[in-house]
Each structure stands twice: as C-alpha cells, then as structure tokens.
C-alpha cells in the first residue's frame, strides 16, 4: 500500500478539522498516512489520531518549527525517508505556505486546493479548479511524489484504524524567516474558509451598520462565519479577510447565505461549490438566484431578522 505524508495542523493539542479532512483524502485513495505535527501540543494531538487511519505520527519541535523554510525542508526529508508517493497538507494559510516549498525541495509540481483525490494505477489523480472554478481539471504527475493541498470542507473525515506509533524529531535550524508572533482576532472567530455556515452580506445592506443583521444571523447558527462581497470590502465596511470571490477567498461551506449580494461572476466563482445556497435579494432578476437552491425576494432588513428569530427558536429547543 502506498504511503502519504500528511501535514496535520493542531492548536493547543486539538486537531484542526481541515487536517482531518486531508487525512480523509489520503484514506479515500486507499493510502496509509504518516502524520506530521508540530508545535506545543503536538504530542497530545497525535494521541487523538487513533481513529483516523494513520499508521505513524511524527512530532516536530525546536526552533525550526517556527520557520516555514526550515519546516518545509524537514517535511520534504520525511517524505523521502518514508519513501512516500504523496504529500498532502490542508489548503489553510499554513498549508498553502508550506506545501509549495515541500514540493520544490522534492523537485515536484504542486496541485493546490484539490477537490478530488483518488488512486490511479500505481499513483494518484487529483481534480482541481481552474479560473476560480469556471473549469475543472483532472491531473496526474510524472514526478516522484504527488504533492497537493486539499480544499477545506470538501473531503470526508476517515474513521477506524489502529493507534499510530508516535516518534519525535527536533529541528535545530532556525531558518531564514521566523514567525515571531500572532495577533489573534477577536473571540476565536471562525474563518470563512473553515466554517460550515457562511452568512455573507453585500452592498444591499446600505451601510456598515447594516451588517448587524448578518452578524446576528451568523450568531444564531453558532458555528457560522460572516462573509462579504468585494464591493463592501472596497468601501471599507468589512475587512478583506471576509471577502468571498475570485480575488478573495474560495469557500465551500455546507450552507452559504447571500444577503444583498447581486451575484457577479467574480463572487460566484468563490462560493458556487457550497452545499446549499440561499439568496435573499430585493431584485428577483439578481444573478445570485441562478445559483441559489432557495431564494427569497424582498427587503433583507425585514427577512433576515425574522429568519434569525426562527433559527434561535429551533436552536433553543435542542
């Protein structure tokens, strides 16, 4: 059976959902996964990998874990030491930063943000979007190792498997670039790429304060993130980190709710692979209704608070 090295992100001993999905992609292709974790809490997180189809876990510590160049070199060395035929990382900001460097160290191409990963002959094949999802390509590589990052909210999480053997390594090379700090954003808010529900607002909300109804709806779901169209980001109403679309983030939540967003081609490119799409817009001709599973025509300032109240009531019953 082929071996795939998977970069598994953890935070304070907790495995990140996106990493479990990357392990799920490896499992789905019938491969054995070797998980690599790093930072404080790596050992605790590795101990939680028992049910994810992972044969071995390697925990990295030392100054090199704070340097993307040193860490990516260590990952490439592990891929070679394991004679792995694949390397996967989740398409998180850390994964997207490391994976191209790992691929370069291995002299291999990288497939970014793949939405499909399967066995093909002795190797693997991937599917990934081109032109922000306006086309889809199925690809293989002639390189020795298939390197890819997996799109968030796309791969099922694998179950079963024995507990991995855990080993550790210390990276002493401090690297050429070093992360020296993180300024966390307020109250552990979910990022639009990670959240199972995204509630997005556009220019139809009229003013920055109009986003209160979006924030309230997101809060009613609990595990939702707030997204935005580029128009309102450019107006300075919302931060760029919330922008969905071709020049923002590509999201694929289980539920995407677009409020007061017209549905320009660049916006659709960033959200059209979402599970269920709901649109609320006062213009029945708005292009967003062409991709929406469910639409309500009318004034967001009346509809959204009513929806929020209903959802709160349902959640309160659970």
């Amino acid at each position: 059976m082929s071996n795939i090295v998977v970069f598994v992100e953890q935070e304070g001993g907790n495995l990140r959902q996106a990493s479990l999905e990357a392990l799920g992609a490896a499992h789905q292709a019938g491969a054995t996964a070797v998980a690599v974790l790093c930072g404080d809490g790596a050992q605790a997180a590795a101990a939680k990998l028992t049910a994810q189809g992972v044969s071995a876990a390697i925990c990295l510590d030392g100054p090199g874990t704070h340097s993307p160049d040193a860490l990516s070199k260590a990952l490439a060395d592990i891929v070679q030491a394991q004679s792995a035929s694949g390397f996967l990382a989740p398409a998180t900001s850390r994964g997207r930063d490391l994976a191209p460097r790992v691929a370069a160290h291995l002299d291999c191409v990288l497939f970014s943000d793949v939405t499909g990963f399967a066995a093909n002959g002795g190797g693997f094949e991937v599917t990934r979007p081109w032109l922000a999802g306006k086309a889809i390509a199925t690809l293989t590589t002639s390189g020795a190792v298939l390197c890819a990052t997996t799109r968030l909210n796309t791969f099922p999480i694998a179950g079963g498997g024995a507990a991995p053997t855990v080993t550790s390594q210390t990276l002493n090379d401090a690297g050429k670039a070093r992360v020296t700090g993180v300024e966390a954003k307020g109250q552990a808010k979910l990022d639009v790429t990670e959240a199972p529900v995204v509630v997005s607002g556009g220019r139809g909300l009229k003013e920055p304060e109009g986003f209160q109804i979006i924030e309230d709806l997101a809060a009613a779901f609990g595990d939702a993130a707030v997204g935005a169209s580029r128009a309102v980001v450019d107006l300075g109403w919302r931060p760029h980190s919330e922008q969905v679309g071709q020049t923002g983030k590509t999201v694929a939540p289980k539920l995407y709710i677009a409020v007061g967003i017209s549905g320009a081609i660049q916006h659709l490119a960033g959200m059209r692979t979402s599970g269920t799409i709901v649109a609320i817009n006062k213009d029945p001709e708005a292009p967003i209704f062409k991709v929406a599973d469910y639409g309500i025509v009318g004034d967001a300032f009346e509809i959204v608070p009513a929806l929020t109240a209903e959802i709160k009531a349902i959640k309160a019953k659970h």
Partner: protein
Amino acid sequence: MNIVACVKRVPNTEAVAEISADGKGLDAKNFQYIASFYDEIAVEQAVQTKEALGGEVIVLSLGSAAGSKEIRESMAKGADKAVLLVDEEWQSRDCRATAKALACQLSELKADVVFMGKVATDRDNGAVGPMAATFLGYACVTDVVALELTATGGTAKRETEAGIETVEFSLPAVITCNKGLNEPRYAGLKGIMAAKKKPLDEVQVEVIANQAQVVRASLPAPRKEGRILGEGVAAVPALIQALQTETTLL
C-alpha cells in the same frame, strides 16, 4: 537594491471558460488579458520600496511576446525596466516549470527582494512564489498584508485564519502580496509616455517540460435549478423547512 516584481498575463476575471478541442485545456480564443490582480499590488510594493530604499525596479514576466501591454503598464507606474521571458505556452506551464524559469532569471538579475502575487487568477496555484524562493534558497513570506523593509531584511505581517502573524526574515527574499498591502496607483500621462522609452528585454527561453499531466478538463456541472420560495417574511417558514429537510444544520 535590485527589486523585482513578477507580473503574469492572465485572462480577465469576466472570462468565460470553454474547453479546448483536445479536451485538456482552456480555449483561449475569446480571452482578453490583464496583469493578474495581485501582481498590481506587487508592482506597487516594488515601486514604494525603491522610493524608500533606492535601487531599481525590474518587471519580470514569463509569457507571450504579445503580452508587452501589461508590462508597459507596470513601467508606467514606476518600474524602470523589464525582462520578458518569451514562452507562448506560458498559460499551460505548471507551477514547477514556471517557478524554475523565473528563479533562473531572478538569480541572473541578482534580485535582493522579489514581489509576486499571492496567487495568479488563472490557474490559482498560489505556488510560484514560495517554489521559486525554495529553488533559489531565498527567504519567503506569503500572503503579506504589511511590510517593513531594510537593506538586509524585514518584518512582514501575513494573514492567517487565526489572525495576523508577524514574520521576520533576511534578504534576499520573495514576498507574495495580498490585498491590503497597498493601494496600487494609477499611471499618469507622464508615466505612460516615459514607459514607452524604458528598456524591455525579450529573452527567448527553453522552459522545462511539465510534470503535471492533464487527464481531462471539463466545465463544472450546472447547479440544479433553484427555487424562489416566495416574497418577504412570509417565505421564511418555507426556507426553515427546506433547511431542516435538506441539511443537517437545523
């Protein structure tokens, strides 16, 4: 200081995808081209770096001989000269082949700092910057939203899911630019006139073969026909019911 901004020619964001006759690529015949969105931020950052620290800004592109329009635009905004690595197959090159071709030229240019886009809005790799840096042995910081640079190194802030991360690095380095790093300037008439006289070096290159092999390219399945549930607040119960029966979220 040798400052380089990498600019890729890509189809504009209104482009409609059509699959080429061989079923393995995109039909380019109706494409209109622009400089990739984030590359405009890279050019602006390069010009601001020159204004602060001195040196020369060189625009580097691997692309079609017909792609000099985007390069002239960058020079109109303050870049001093340009190198165009002529490759008519640039659109279908994989990220490894592109990164190697650029890295080779960057080393020849003795680049101290290289600005690239966070991702090119055609194949959405988001890979060429960190790959080229790795081939060159340069430091690299990706998705940068704020930057302080000196003659020997710098501090960059990058956007992550958790918040804003601070990274210290030494030069030479590749910086990939995210939205928010700066506001690209417009080219003035004087700049446009001056750009016509700035040197644009066309270099013929042999790019290595792709490792990426396209099995097939296709258009995404259209989403199934949606339903307008109704108008105004009266339609909210129908939406709740649909979400309860068709998702596991409520």
